[in-house]
């Protein structure tokens, strides 16, 4: 019998190679938040530097989970890539676990790019503890984003529909989260935005950046984010099919 670690390392090596070849997708996921950093330069101070950085990090996370991850999984399912892998001793958990691990690494890289650009462009800098706490915050936010992507490929069969639906969902989340969160669309939308997956992740990231201000409100948002992550991942696992019906 082959050890689980050997199987996992083979899958991981292949998934990392695939990701390396798709470097453009990683750069594109980082491009939107970086572009917003540049465009918003003049009023980042009004928004609050941590608030702005948390918002842009959330845009990056959602891009990876909903657009990039979901689209790739749906396309590979349609091609029969998963069924071929499942015919080997590799378990479904190992196949998806390897992919998710690579995506979490991508999320960390994109977050690092956004933080570095935030510092370079807008001089947004955090305390050492803020940067340290941002890592678990980003990973939790990544879990919500990947969970949303997983739920999308669980509920939608066709790769084309996942692609289109994912873009629409991402657009809606970003518009409600960013524009609505700023209060441009009114106070009601601002309140709604706060309780969406985008808003909760953003609040957790903002709280992690300023541990000295962490309070009851942040705890509620953290709990909500965990609930979103569990709910999305559960839906994604329950309804996911390895092959197109």
């Amino acid at each position, binding site marked *: *019998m*082959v*050890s689980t670690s*050997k*199987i996992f*390392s*083979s*899958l991981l*090596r*292949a998934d990392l*190679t*695939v990701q390396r*070849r*798709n470097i453009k997708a990683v750069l594109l996921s980082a491009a939107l938040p970086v572009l917003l950093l540049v465009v918003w330069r003049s009023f980042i101070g009004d928004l609050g530097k941590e608030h702005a950085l948390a918002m842009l990090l959330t845009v990056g996370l959602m891009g990876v989970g909903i657009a990039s991850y979901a689209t790739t999984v749906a396309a*590979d399912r349609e*091609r*029969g*890539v998963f*069924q*071929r*892998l*499942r*015919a*080997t*001793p*590799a*378990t479904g958990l190992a196949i998806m676990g390897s992919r998710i691990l690579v995506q979490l690494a991508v999320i960390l890289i994109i977050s690092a790019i956004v933080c570095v650009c935030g510092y370079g462009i807008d001089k947004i800098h955090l305390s050492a503890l803020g940067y340290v706490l941002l890592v678990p915050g980003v990973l939790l936010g990544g879990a919500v984003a990947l969970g949303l992507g997983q739920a999308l490929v669980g509920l939608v069969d066709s790769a084309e529909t996942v692609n289109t639906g994912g873009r629409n969902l991402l657009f809606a989340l970003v518009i409600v989260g960013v524009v609505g969160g700023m209060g441009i669309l009114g106070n009601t939308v601002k309140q709604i935005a706060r309780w969406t997956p985008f808003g909760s992740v953003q609040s957790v990231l903002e709280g992690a950046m300023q541990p000295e201000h962490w309070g009851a409100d942040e705890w509620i948002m953290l709990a909500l984010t965990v609930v979103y992550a569990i709910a999305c991942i559960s839906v994604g696992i329950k309804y996911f099919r*390895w*092959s197109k019906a």
Partner: protein
Amino acid sequence: MNKTNTVLEVSGLQVRYDAFTAVKDVSFSVQTGEIFGLLGPNGAGKTSSLAAIEGLIKPADGIVHIDGVDALTHTAEAKMQLGVQLQKTSFQPELTIYEIIRLYAGLYGVELTRQQIDERLQTIGLEGQGKKRFGQFSGGQQQRVSLLVATIHNPKLVLLDEPTTGLDPQSRRQLWETVETIRQEGRSVVLTTHSMEEAQAVCDRIAIVDHGEVIATDTPEGLIKRYKDDPAVRKQAHGAVTLEDVFIGLTGNTIR
């Protein structure tokens, strides 16, 4: 470890998709070094039967033993003895052939150097092409790569789901030769096919599957001999009874 010559034993296999029963009762066994064909019209339950043997779907009922290992309870152990070529095989399009072979070898605990991969590619006439992507090959070349990947760990049993569909006659003949080589290496093959010519040329024994059930099992010659006087079969024959006459006589000539 199996002490007998039976490398695959399938008994009372049932596969259901919600309310629809795709496989009602499929039973057959395959011996070491045997090439066994599953023949049946579209939707007869061939691919579903193979998928259940491969561990891709969980059967509603039945027994699957691969080299004496219960494939339904010891799935990973059974899969180690199994080489699989699916009807729609696709590998990650971003990976080169080298990387695909290394990935699948690794999943079976086989470590191959670049030189060993080159040697294997040479055996299928694709020497020096390891840096290409799977999608860059022709249909016949893709099938050869798929078969190489399926046998990379020297499995005792190789399952091929319609391996020659869409291939030109040259590629088809080449694949038949490869299947024969697999047998000569002491392994067994189960293949599904629509081609009577293929079944007759390649298979030692055939099971005709229809409506999710095995309706006849024998050697190609044995099937002809057994059913040559059957009125439904005689009705199809234009002269001497062929395997195709037997097949249509038993499964009907309605297009599914």
